[in-house]
């Protein structure tokens, strides 16, 4: 690549955690800044959103009319549009409102519901425009973000394997919490990337990276039920950061 690629970082409905992963790259940040031109990144710079981007990193889901419009403008001005995090790739935790009584939610949460202008659903970016690559996670994993940037600069496809979190868990040498403690764990149906963070602290996986390839959620749910999980427990387990990812949503629906 000749001139430094121009990067834009955009925020939709989200908590900013994924964007912050970029600033979190402390040791690698200087190398990143040396290799790419961070042209637009409101969390870190003052520059305005103008012109064309070689890489657009998009965080957050589409939950307002305004967002539904501007995503098209970003897409048109970007060579590669990459979604970062659970909100942008599946709708995020705010997608729990999909299919629910949104007006009631708003009145329960906000003191002045009349100030709130929102769509009835929170949807992933790919429902609105074509997406070139997705980084999973809530938040994304720093090492995957660096891999994405390094691979893009090297001109190869990034490596963010879609297999189970269990593989990272076993490679890390963690003791399986499901087998050794009977703790419910979504690792066997969850996309790898976090390095099996929670099982490393003797907690079950919460599924932050969303469904893995060929996720057999029904078989896992059957096992959880055998261990005493109720339908409500199973529904809740599949209804968190990736509640709107089809494989998790359908499994949740099967349990109430």
């Amino acid at each position, binding site marked *: 690549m000749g001139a430094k690629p121009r990067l834009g970082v955009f925020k939709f409905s989200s908590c900013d955690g994924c964007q912050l992963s970029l600033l979190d790259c402390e040791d690698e940040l200087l190398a990143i800044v040396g*290799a790419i031109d961070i042209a637009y990144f409101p969390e870190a710079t003052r520059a305005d959103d103008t012109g064309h981007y070689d890489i657009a990193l998009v965080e957050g889901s589409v939950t307002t009319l305004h967002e539904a419009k501007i995503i098209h403008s970003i897409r048109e001005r970007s060579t590669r549009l990459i979604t970062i995090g659970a909100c942008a790739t599946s709708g995020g935790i705010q997608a729990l409102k999909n299919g629910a009584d949104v007006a009631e939610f708003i009145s329960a949460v906000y003191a002045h519901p009349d100030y709130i202008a929102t769509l009835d659903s929170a949807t992933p970016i790919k429902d609105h425009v074509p997406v070139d690559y997705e980084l999973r996670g809530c938040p994304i994993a720093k090492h995957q973000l660096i891999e994405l940037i390094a691979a893009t600069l090297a001109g190869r496809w990034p490596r963010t394997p879609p297999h189970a979190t269990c593989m990272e868990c076993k490679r890390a040498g963690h003791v399986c919490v499901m087998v050794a403690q009977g703790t419910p764990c979504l690792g066997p149906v969850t996309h790898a990337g976090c390095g099996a963070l929670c099982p490393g602290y003797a907690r079950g996986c919460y599924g932050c990276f969303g469904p893995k390839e060929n996720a057999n959620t029904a078989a*896992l749910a059957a*096992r959880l039920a055998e261990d005493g999980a109720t339908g409500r427990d199973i529904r809740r387990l599949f209804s968190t950061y990736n509640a709107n990812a089809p494989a998790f949503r359908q499994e949740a629906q099967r349990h109430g």
Partner: protein
Amino acid sequence: MSGSGDPARVVIDANGIDTLIAILAKRGYEVLGPVRRDGAIVHEPIASTDDLPRGWIDEQRGGHYRLKQEGDAYFAYTVGPSSWKRVLHPPRQPLWRSEIRDGEVAIEAASVDTQRRALIGVRACELAAIAVQDRVFLEGPYQDRHYAARRAGLFIVAVNCGRAVETCFCVSMDTGPEARAGFDIALTEIANGRFVATAGSDDGAARLAELPTRPAEPSELDAAAAAIETAAGQMTRTLETEGLPDLLTSNPDHPRWDDVAQRCLNCANCTMVCPTCFCTDVEEVNDLDGGGAARVQQWASCFTTDFTYLHGGGAVRDSVRSRYRQWMTHKLATWHDQFGTSGCVGCGRCIAWCPVGIDITEEAAAMRGARGGG
């Protein structure tokens, strides 16, 4: 390890084993042994017998592993989630690194690990698994230099099992419960912290000669034999190996493959915990400044899409059914063609550590149309 060693059987106590650990450490070995961590027995550096999980035993069945306190034996537990594969063939292994220096690409191979290690508490099935991986990594046309270096530096203290759990089936696979070869010293725990010890190599005999021991009494030899017999007798699970390779390779469309595919999570835990599974893939790691790159080998699994992904064509084995079939057929059938041995040593890890308890012995029995499992 060479020579037939000293066949003499001696009795040693925990102090003697402490002395052995100290001698090995002094000779530059990193001493690894069983310790209790996060509800399981795993292998970590140990300094003395105080680190061993004395008085702890395991209870295992499909998808289930628990530790509990019972008795005062040092080695009454069986096999845990981590096999010695983790030491000899680690999950991540850097292969080489390249840099651009003065416009030229310079490639440097990763150095091999020459640390000598002593493994304490290796079971018969695990010795068999190491022998299987020796065939894979050392005895073919190409050698794995990293495995070879680690393997060359081993001192193995085997332990004959005096207890089996529900997932064990080494008797069926003819690999245990008694260690027959491939160790430097073998121990059989009798009672009150005493062990009958035998050397299996010249090195083992030399170390044993440095320890406080005495010749074993006939009653102690009887107790050792009885302990091994107890373990063999406790084994309820069986795998009928007669004609098994033909049965599997001639039944690619058996309905049982569909049945297991319904239950299998394709999570790859079975392949990760299996002490003989050896597959890896190679990952490229690029420096952000574009100057350097590295290749790193890491454990892979036939249960993933990437494993059979062909550029432009997708995955050859894209269904869970085809992946389970591949795994089991390789273990129990085509491994014989490839390496002249079974790929399964009967340790039962894939059964216990499968989150949904899929049981290779039960699947094999179902293929035969018989009732199986334990």
